[in-house]
């Protein structure tokens, strides 16, 4: 199994979720994160003091899938998350040794 970890723009999470629903992937876990990379930050003025904010709001979407589904899911995420502007985010693929469904003790791909 593979964990697909996508860092996307907050405004795109809904689209990503919808795209995954469309291809039948319903299990996922999302986390609010902040990220920095090539994307420029922005400045704010508070009483004339300037602040540069470089850690921008992003959302991490984690989906564990059977290895065979990886490409399909990655494609769906890219389709939904891409705006073409810097800051669209990354997808990281990491190995998963096993999965367990707490409710039933099911293991492996059955647990997904």
């Amino acid at each position, binding site marked *: 199994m593979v964990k697909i970890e996508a860092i996307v723009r907050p405004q795109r999470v*809904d689209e990503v979720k919808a795209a995954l629903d469309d291809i039948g992937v319903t299990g996922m876990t999302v986390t609010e994160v902040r990220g*920095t990379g090539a994307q420029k930050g922005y400045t*704010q*003025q508070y009483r*004339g*003091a300037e602040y540069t904010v470089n850690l921008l709001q992003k959302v991490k979407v984690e989906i564990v899938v059977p290895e065979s589904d990886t490409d399909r899911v990655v494609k769906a995420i890219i389709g939904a998350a891409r705006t073409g502007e810097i800051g669209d985010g990354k997808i990281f693929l990491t190995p998963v040794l096993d999965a367990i469904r707490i409710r039933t003790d099911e293991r492996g791909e059955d647990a997904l």
Partner: protein
Amino acid sequence: MAGTAFAQEAAEVTAPAAAAPAAANSGNTAWILASAALVLLMTPGLALFYGGMVRAKNLLNMLMQSFVAMAVITVLWVLVGYSLSFAGSAPVFGTFEWVGLSGVGQAPDDFYATSIPHQLFMVYQMMFAIITPALISGAVAERMKFSAYVIFMAIWSLVVYAPLAHMVWGEGGFLLGLGALDFAGGTVVHISSGISALVLAILLGKRKLSHNDDTRPHNLPMTLIGTGLLWFGWFGFNAGSAVAADGIATNAFVVTQVAAASAALAWMLIEWVAFKKPTALGFATGAVAGLVAITPAAGFVGPLAAIVMGIGVSFLSFFAIKMKSKLGYDDTLDVFGVHCVGGIFGALATGLFAQTSINAAAPNGLFFGGGAALLGKQAVGVLIALAIGATMTFLIGSILKATIGIRATSEEEEVGLDLTLHGEEAYAGPTIAVQTTSRDAVGGGHGATSHASAGVVASEPAA
């Protein structure tokens, strides 16, 4: 304010010891000072009421749309607004006689303020002029350009609010002369802002929402705090409109409380039946709808009528809001459904429930043996407020749209108006660590910017 001429006549009946026009009464002055402060507080209250309902990324913009009215309208009112609303005795427009408050001093005024300083009446009225355009902001939330909003509001105040206030409450005003009653602003405040809200929302167009954006209220406790402050301040709004601390003021106070309570209760019960869950937002919406409905009627109807009106307005507003989805306009926070619908209902219900025994200056309404005469006059008032609000808003809005533009860009809307229009975030924390660079000397000196790598340098401000 509001129906002052009537209120004052009545006051003379119940308070025969009222001072001669030349001397202010300290008790009445005390109450109107307090009332003016209460009405001022309604605008921050409105800001919170609305603010809790938008998404966090647009919160400061929403709050500012109310607060900015406290700044802009105040200055405008002193310079020309009060004069255009109350000076002279023409049927439709005020004159320039009191521009810059010249002639508006500490002495009472024969017509508007027989027992309090004229300037006190002026500042009390100012508070109404402030909150009225701010009410509109709920309909244009989350997408309007801030500069256009400020300009719209200022013009609107002069071309919609001022003439309407003059017709309804001004010396020689056409609707006042006709005998249409509006104790504290059902037509002048709520119908006018409610219909304008609808028109402006349509001119602006819908928010750019994807089918699954989360537009739920981001902070309902904030909305409830706002509701509490609005309810509290509304006592100044309605009971202060007697321009005296007397029996009429008391009546207005009582029915304000009763209408707010019964409307909140009714809305809660409607939801309980319809959805099995009485919501806090429903309660708050009902309370405000009740307060709106009783506003034109407060000095004229009794507590049992207020119960009926409270229940009635919640049913009407509830279904008006339901209809929104069918009609497809994006009145973000239902200003039309609550203020316009509630205001119309309240104005007409005044024609049904008014009682001469409560206010000697008012005729009996339809249900108290007065026939349909008053109801008809009320309908005229409603129609005029609707007509002026709709046409003038359409005009101002269209001109602004064609010139400076009234809508934020898609990107501003998507990122959020706080960051893009105001350069701030409402909640910067509480604990998330964020890299920032400050030009502020504090903590500086040791290379505040040396770590800024090329790719992440933010655009330099114009300062």
